[in-house]
């Protein structure tokens, strides 16, 4: 998948957190590329490491509490070699981030205008008036009806959807090449969610940016993403285009997730429940397929000792060989709590 438009190349990145004096991997050996003009969705359930990946790319971890290895090549610079000051040239300027909870992500004591123009203070040489103009233009771009009024307001005076638009305005203020959106619509109503996703898509087209969309919502992924990486227990287990992952899912985890969604035709059936739990960081096995304990009917021989990614179609990769033999047990209603 090495092409000229790869501007972000994540190579073998692991991030470990210190828990009671010992380091445990929250994400291990992640390989990913992001291209211009695409939305890459990273999807998984809580604790799978998708947000850790985002904060690792942004360099937001406390170095005393985390150990990061691998390489994050962003337009020729390995971000992991940068110190905090060096990182600040990228954060806000070339990489913008959108957070989940738009209320707490804004400083309650600062006016919207100040919070948006702050990012330009550090990355542009615009004059005060130019920044003011740009703030109004950005607010308009993200779909705020009365930019002048909103610029002068405080976060608590805005609705959740408007706050999220402001967060997006901050993220795109310096026209970054990469936008990381961490659960950008989780706190919002569905109708607002749809609008925010539209805004995201529009700014991606306009700026030729690459977007990493982190979400747990398969519906959001299917509606928005060009490519999808499914994460489980700190690893990517399946990667491919949205069509590949949704139309021909291969990994047992992807298939299980899709099956546990309430669908149009299964109203009277029980939903599929994945057995067991995600192992905690401290109990993560170092070898073997991490998903194997949750599909106990699949024989051990079907799994790899050290599962690696296998290409099933061009651009479509799946971890571990067990996908070949995997099927759901027939008695579907009987798999209950």
């Amino acid at each position, binding site marked *: 998948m090495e092409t000229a438009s790869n501007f972000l190349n994540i190579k073998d990145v692991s991030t470990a957190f210190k828990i009671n004096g010992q380091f445990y991997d929250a994400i291990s050996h992640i390989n990913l590329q992001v291209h211009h003009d695409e939305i890459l969705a990273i999807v998984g359930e809580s604790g799978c490491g998708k947000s850790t990946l985002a904060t690792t790319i942004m360099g*937001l971890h406390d170095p005393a509490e985390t150990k990061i290895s691998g390489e994050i090549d962003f337009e020729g610079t390995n971000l992991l070699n940068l110190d905090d000051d060096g990182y600040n040239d990228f954060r806000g300027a070339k*990489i913008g981030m959108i957070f989940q*909870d738009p209320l707490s992500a804004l400083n*309650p*004591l600062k006016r919207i205008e100040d*919070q948006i123009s*702050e990012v330009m203070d550090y990355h542009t040489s615009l004059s005060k008036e130019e920044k003011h103009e740009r703030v109004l233009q950005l607010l308009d771009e993200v779909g705020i009806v009365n930019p002048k009024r909103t610029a002068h307001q405080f976060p608590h005076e805005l609705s959740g959807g408007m706050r999220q638009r402001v967060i997006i305005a901050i993220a795109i203020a310096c026209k970054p090449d990469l936008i990381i959106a961490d659960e950008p619509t989780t706190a919002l109503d569905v109708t607002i969610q749809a609008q925010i996703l539209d805004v995201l898509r529009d700014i991606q087209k306009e700026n030729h940016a690459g977007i990493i969309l982190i979400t747990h919502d398969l519906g959001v992924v299917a509606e928005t993403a060009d490519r999808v990486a499914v994460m489980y227990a700190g690893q990517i287990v399946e990667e491919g285009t949205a069509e590949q992952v949704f139309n021909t899912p291969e990994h047992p985890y992807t298939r299980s997730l899709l099956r546990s969604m309430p669908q149009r035709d299964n109203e009277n059936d029980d939903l599929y429940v994945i057995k067991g739990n995600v192992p905690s960081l401290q109990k993560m096995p170092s070898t073997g397929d991490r998903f194997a304990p949750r599909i106990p009917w699949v024989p051990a021989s079907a799994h790899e000792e050290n599962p690696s990614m296998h290409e099933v179609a061009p651009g479509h990769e799946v971890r571990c060989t067990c996908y070949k033999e995997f099927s759901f047990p027939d008695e579907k209603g009987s798999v209950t709590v």
Partner: protein
Amino acid sequence: MWKTILRRFLIMIPEVIILSILVFLLAKAMPGDPFTGSINPKADPQQIHHLMKINGLYDPWYQQYWQWVVHLFHGNLGNSYQYQEPVTRLIAGRAGNTLWLALFTMILTYAFALPMGVFAGRHEGKLPDTIIRVYTYVTYCIPFFVILVIGIWIFGYVFGWFPTTGSISAEASGSGWLQTIGSRFYHILLPGILGALFGTVNIVQYLRSEVIDAKGSDYVRTARSKGVPSKDIYRHHIFRNSLLPIAAFAGYSITGLLNGSIFTETVFSYPGMGLLFVNSISYRDYTVITALVLIYGILNLIGTLLSDIILSIVDPRIRIE
């Protein structure tokens, strides 16, 4: 905005009335009478009875209260039984001393507490933080008057650096204004510093945890992801947001200072309202006690009023247009 302040002010009126009634009744409920013990013990009980009568002390409480309120509005708080002079003049002579000491203590308190709290919060878990925390815990555990006594003993007696009684030295009181001010300042230095050391504890601990909270907040993460350098994040986001509750707290700290002044002035024999209060209690000087408690009570109410106003000005979330 002004409407809110005015309304808040009007609410104070019934509070003051209730306060004054309570104060008056409490003073009345104290055992003993103002004459027993203060005049010749061999005095004729008949004569005491007569004194009580002409002073209206046998009237029903509400009549006495009403009398007191009427006089109050004429600036007449009665005569002190103990000093035989008008309470107004008595208190006016002391109020200045207390005010200067309180103001000085307050300035010192914030001058110590703000840097300490911010520093401890910023370097959470590191050595300076640990030292500051040990200091706050130790100070918190020792009663205030013990701190005062120890302070007076070490710095007043052992080293002899500071005066231990009074508000001005005898030599200075007759000479020029420069000596007068110098001596007065010299006299409030030690009580002020000791008061401030004690007063910092709450503010340091509060500010420290505010800074730590702010450090981990989502809006600081947003600022970091904008590429704002660490020192600017502290300056523009963390300090301001952490200081907000402290600023609002400033009004309430008047209360603490006044309570503290009672200890400080007693231990230092500093002629302020606090010392007067303690003396008046031991002499059952009702008129002075009621006047002082009323003043202290009203100052407390003003303190909370100030806090409310400050908060409504500095915090946009509760700012009322």
